[in-house]
């Protein structure tokens, strides 16, 4: 990629909206062209400035008012001919579900994560941020995208943190952590979801009392689970025992973080 091509893609590059191959080409260009690197840094800083703007939460009365009005409307409609009642009740229930809707099918999502893992494994420098320090990586996600990411420390199991990048998965900004055990890569994805209990692909397994789904695709093993806000996906050629151990560790660290 040359400077002209890089600058034409500056905004989607900074927004993490380029296809994987172009993203890698842009990273590579940035690494050798200080001018373009400075441009993208400046653009990122500008985005962070906008993101840092104080966000006014919706007033509690507004929330209560909406609930009241929707309920009143549901009641009013159910006062219509009897036949409408079950339909309205169903619609009322449906809207509650709608507001918690899946924005994607989890099976497709996990398949997408496998594709990303494979694609990243083929590029020379898959991490946007190279760091073996979990705290630094977590801070990078917070600054870069306002994401609160748990970055587990797998070093006791000989799995080394390599770095991180911001990925896009099904229209969502996702956190991507890259680890290495020897020469085997382990990808850890965290994707915000709005579904409480997504149907994950593969077989259900229980590990240390917690449910996970294990699934093989394109020669990769995946372990996935969700906690109501986030879908977690581990992709690697490591065996399931090792992956589940990593999953358990991530879950524990996240729980500890939430308690703080």
């Amino acid at each position, binding site marked *: 990629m040359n400077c002209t091509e890089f600058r034409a893609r*500056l905004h*989607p590059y900074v927004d993490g909206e380029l296809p994987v191959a172009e993203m890698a080409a842009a990273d590579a260009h940035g690494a050798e062209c200080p001018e373009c690197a400075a441009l993208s840094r400046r653009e990122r800083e500008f985005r962070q400035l906008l993101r840092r703007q104080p966000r006014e939460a919706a007033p509690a009365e507004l929330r209560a008012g909406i609930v009241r009005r929707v309920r009143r*409307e549901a009641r009013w409609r159910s006062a219509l001919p009897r036949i409408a009642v079950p339909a309205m009740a169903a619609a009322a229930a449906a*809207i*509650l579900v709608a507001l918690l809707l899946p*924005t994607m099918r989890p099976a497709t999502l996990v398949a997408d994560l496998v594709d990303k893992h494979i694609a990243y494994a083929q590029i020379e420098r898959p991490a946007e941020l190279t760091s073996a320090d979990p705290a630094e990586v977590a801070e990078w996600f917070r600054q870069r995208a306002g994401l609160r990411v748990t970055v587990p420390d797998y070093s006791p199991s000989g799995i080394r943190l390599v770095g991180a990048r911001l990925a896009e998965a099904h*229209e969502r900004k996702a956190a991507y952590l890259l680890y290495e055990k020897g020469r085997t890569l382990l990808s850890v994805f965290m994707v915000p979801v*709005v579904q409480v209990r997504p149907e994950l692909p593969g077989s259900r397994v229980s590990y240390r009392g917690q449910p996970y789904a294990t699934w093989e695709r394109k020669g990769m093993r995946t372990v996935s689970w969700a906690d109501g806000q986030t879908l977690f996906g581990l992709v690697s050629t490591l065996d399931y025992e090792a992956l589940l151990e990593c999953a358990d560790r991530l879950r524990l660290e996240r729980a500890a973080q939430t308690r703080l």
Partner: protein
Amino acid sequence: MAVVHLDALYHTALRLTHSRPEAEDIVQETYLRAFRNFHRFNVGTNCRAWLFTIMRNVFLNRLRGQGREVLQGEADVREASDTSSSAHVGLGNPEEEFFQTVLHGDIDRALKALPLPFREAVVLTDLEGLSYREVAEVVGCPIGTVMSRLSRGRSLLRRALSRFAREHGYVKEVE
């Protein structure tokens, strides 16, 4: 009742209207419409984008009702295609330093001055974190248009902010 996305909708409404009572009305109406039109919602598609789309319609209808600023600025939008202006700004430009000195009210003021098509692209992408695809769905235009509005919107915003910084005397006049 799960009123997820409420903060995001309210926040965006506030950025679009600059008025709390108006933002509250718009958000409330958005949820009522979502409730009434739920049968039209395609399960499995993006709920957040759907709610934002409804809200944008509510907002535009109000503007039309009040005979106020409506979605124009298409001339500006066309102009955007021939400027990747932000990319042409050289290094060492004093603009770079103003980031440190932007006051909270400045961004509000600068956003307010942006023509609506650019304002909504910037607000949805940069402040609310929607993806290009979601923004395209919400504003009903191709992704390419979202990209050019965003690039133009950001550069207009940046220019306005650097002007404010000069007014505050933080950045010295060049030229």
